[in-house]
C-alpha cells in the first residue's frame, strides 16, 4: 500500500486554479520532493495533504485514510512543517516541545521531548524563551518538533529555508535518517542541490500541473542534464 496516493487533485482559491488535477504516489519510507518555482502550487499541495485546506476535486489517501472524510485520523499520522512557521514566543524551547508532545502521547511525553531536544541540538538554549532564538535556532526547534513525534508521514515545506550552509546540512542529514527509520517524507524545495541529495523521487510542478516525475538520476539522464535545475528548465521550456 502506498503511503500517499494523490489522484487528479484540484484546489481553487476563488476563481484561481492553484492546483490543476495533479496525481502522484509515495511509497512508505520514501523521500519525495515537489520541485517548482514560486506560485507553482507546491505549498498548496502540501497544505492540502496536511489537512489544512479542503479540496475541490480528485482524491487524496494517506496510509489508507481518505483525506476528505478522515482528516482527524490522518492528523495522528502526519507532521507538517510550514515554510515560515513560528513557535509560541513566550514559551521556552523545551516547553514548546512539551506542549506539542502532549497532543500525541500524554502518558509518555518524556521520550518524545528528549528526542526533540536531541534533534534541535540547542544545548542549554533549549530552556531559553523562543523569542530570543535566531532564525536558524528557530528552524532547528521546528524541525525537532516535526520529527520528534515519529510521524508516518513528514510533510516539510522548504525545510532548510533561511538556514546557513552548516545548519542546512545538519537538517538534511536529519531528514535522511528519519526516512531510514521508516518515516515517509514529502518535501518541497527551491534548492535543486538539496533535492538531488535528499529525494528518492521528485515531481516537477509548474502552474499547478506536474510536468515530470521520477528519480533525480533518471530524469537527468532522460533530459541529458547535468543537474535537476537543468532538467527543470528543459521541461518547462
Amino acid at each position, binding site marked *: 500500500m502506498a503511503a500517499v496516493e494523490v489522484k487528479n487533485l484540484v484546489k481553487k*482559491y*476563488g476563481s484561481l486554479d492553484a492546483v490543476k488535477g495533479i496525481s502522484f504516489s509515495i511509497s512508505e519510507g520514501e523521500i519525495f520532493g515537489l520541485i517548482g518555482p514560486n506560485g507553482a502550487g507546491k505549498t498548496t499541495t502540501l*497544505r492540502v495533504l*496536511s*489537512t*489544512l*485546506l*479542503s479540496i475541490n476535486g480528485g482524491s487524496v489517501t494517506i496510509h489508507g485514510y481518505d483525506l476528505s472524510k478522515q482528516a*482527524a485520523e490522518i*492528523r*495522528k499520522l*502526519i*507532521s*507538517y*512543517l*510550514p515554510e*515560515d*512557521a*513560528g*513557535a*509560541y*514566543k513566550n514559551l521556552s524551547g523545551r516547553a514548546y516541545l512539551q506542549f*506539542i508532545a502532549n*497532543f*500525541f502521547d500524554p502518558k509518555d511525553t518524556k521520550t518524545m521531548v528528549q528526542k526533540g531536544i536531541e534533534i534541535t541540538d540547542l544545548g542549554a538554549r533549549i530552556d531559553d524563551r523562543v523569542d530570543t532564538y535566531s532564525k536558524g535556532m528557530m528552524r532547528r526547534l*521546528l524541525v525537532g*518538533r516535526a520529527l520528534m513525534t515519529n510521524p508516518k508521514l513528514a510533510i516539510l515545506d522548504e525545510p532548510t529555508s533561511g538556514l546557513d550552509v552548516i545548519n542546512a546540512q545538519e537538517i538534511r542529514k536529519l531528514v535522511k535518517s528519519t526516512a531510514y527509520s521508516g518515516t515517509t517524507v514529502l518535501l518541497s524545495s527551491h534548492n535543486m542541490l538539496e533535492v538531488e541529495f535528499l529525494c528518492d523521487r521528485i515531481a516537477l510542478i509548474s502552474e499547478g500541473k506536474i510536468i515530470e516525475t521520477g528519480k533525480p538520476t533518471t530524469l537527468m539522464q532522460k533530459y541529458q542534464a547535468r543537474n535537476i535545475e537543468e532538467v527543470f528548465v528543459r521541461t518547462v521550456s
Partner: protein
Amino acid sequence: MSGLGNITKKEIRELLTPATFIPIIVVALIFATMGTSIQGLQEQSSDPPVIGIITEDTSEYSAMALTILHTNAKSVFNSTSIADLQNGLETVKQHDGVAVVFIPKNFTDRISQEEQGTIEVYWIMKGTGIMDSISSGTLHLLLSYINTNLSKHLIEQNTSVNASFVLSPTNRVETTFYKNRQFPGISPNTIAGMLASQSMLIPLVMMMIIIMAGGIVITSMALEKENKTLETLLTLPVKRTSIVTGKIIAAAVIGLILAVIYMMGMQFYFKGFELSVGVNLATYDLVLTTADFLWIGFSLFLALIAGLSLCMLLGSFAKNYKSAQTLTFPITMLALIPMFITIFADFDTLPLAVKVLTFAIPFSHPMMASRALLFDDYLLVIGGIVYVGIFALITISIVVWVFKTDRLLTGTTKFKWLKALKRRRF
C-alpha cells in the same frame, strides 16, 4: 509625489478597509436608534404628570393644593373618599400615570392649628432605572410647589410665628407600589437610587471581563496568525472544538482574574462616593438571596462564554495584531451599551427598539439579572439565560465551522449554497 504624500497615500490605503469601517457604522446605527428612543422618553417627561386625586378635605388649604395639582397635572381620577384608593390606583395605572395624591380630612384644620398637614402620595413605580424616576420627579416638584405656596400664604396672613412650621406647613407620607409589592414610607426615587448603587457592580464587572477577556481572545487569534503558529496547531491531532473551547476557557480565567483586580480598586473608588440615605433595603425584602446569586453567576458565566465565542469569531477575521485591535472595538461597545442602559433605565420601561436591542446583546442579561431577581422577575432571568445559552451554542458552532473551513488560512470560505443560488439567478 513627495515623501509625505507617498506615505500618507499608502497609510490611507492600508487603513481604508471594511474591518475599520463596518464596526463604526454598526455602532453609529445603534447609537442613532438609542438616541431616537431616549428623545421620546425626554419628550414624555416634559408632559404634565398623570395623577389621581382623592380629597376628603374641601376647606381653604386643601383647595389651594388642589388648584395647583389640577392646573399643573393631568388628573384622571377624582374622588372624595380614601376607600376608592384601589380604584384610583388602577385607573392611574391604566393611564400610565405616576401616583394617587390623597389629602385627608383634617388637612386644613391641622395647618390652622400650626401642625403640618399631611399629603399622602401613593406612587406607581414603573421601573427601577434612574431615568424612570423622571416623571415622578415632576410630581415631587409640584408637591414642593404646594408647600411653598401654602408657606407664602401663611406668611402673608401673618398667622404664625413658628418659623419652622411656616416654612414647611406640609409633610409627605409616601407609599410605593411596584410589581404587586407595596413599599410603605419610601419613594420611587429612593428605591431607584439605592438599587442603582447596589446593582452598578455587576454591570461594571461584566463590562470589564468582556473587554479584557474579549481582547485576549481576539489578540490570541491574531497572534497565532502573525506568529505563524496556527497552521501547525491545526495539523495536530486535536479536535477543532477543543482548540476553540480551550482558548475561550483560558481567556475567561484570565479575564476573571483581571476583572477581580480591577474591581478591588474600583470598590474603594466607589466607597468614596457612597451616600447613606438612611434606608435599609432588607426592611423591604430588597436583598438578593444565595439562590439569586447562583442565578446571577450562571447568567454571568453563560454571557461570558457567549461573548468570548463572539470574540473568537471576530478573531478569525483578524489578520494580525493591528487588525485585532480594530476588532475589539465592537465588543467594547457591545459591553458598554447594556452597562449604561441597565444603570440608567429599567428593562420594563425601555422603548421597544431599545428593549429588543438590549435583550439581543448577551452581556445585558447578567447586568439586568440582579434587579429582576429582587422583584422576582424570573421570566426575564431564565428567558435571558436560555437566549444567551442558545446564542453561545450557535456562535461556538459557527466558530468551529470556520475552523474547519479554509477561511482561517486563506480568508475565503466556500459557500456552496450561495454559489448554487447565484447560478440559478444568472
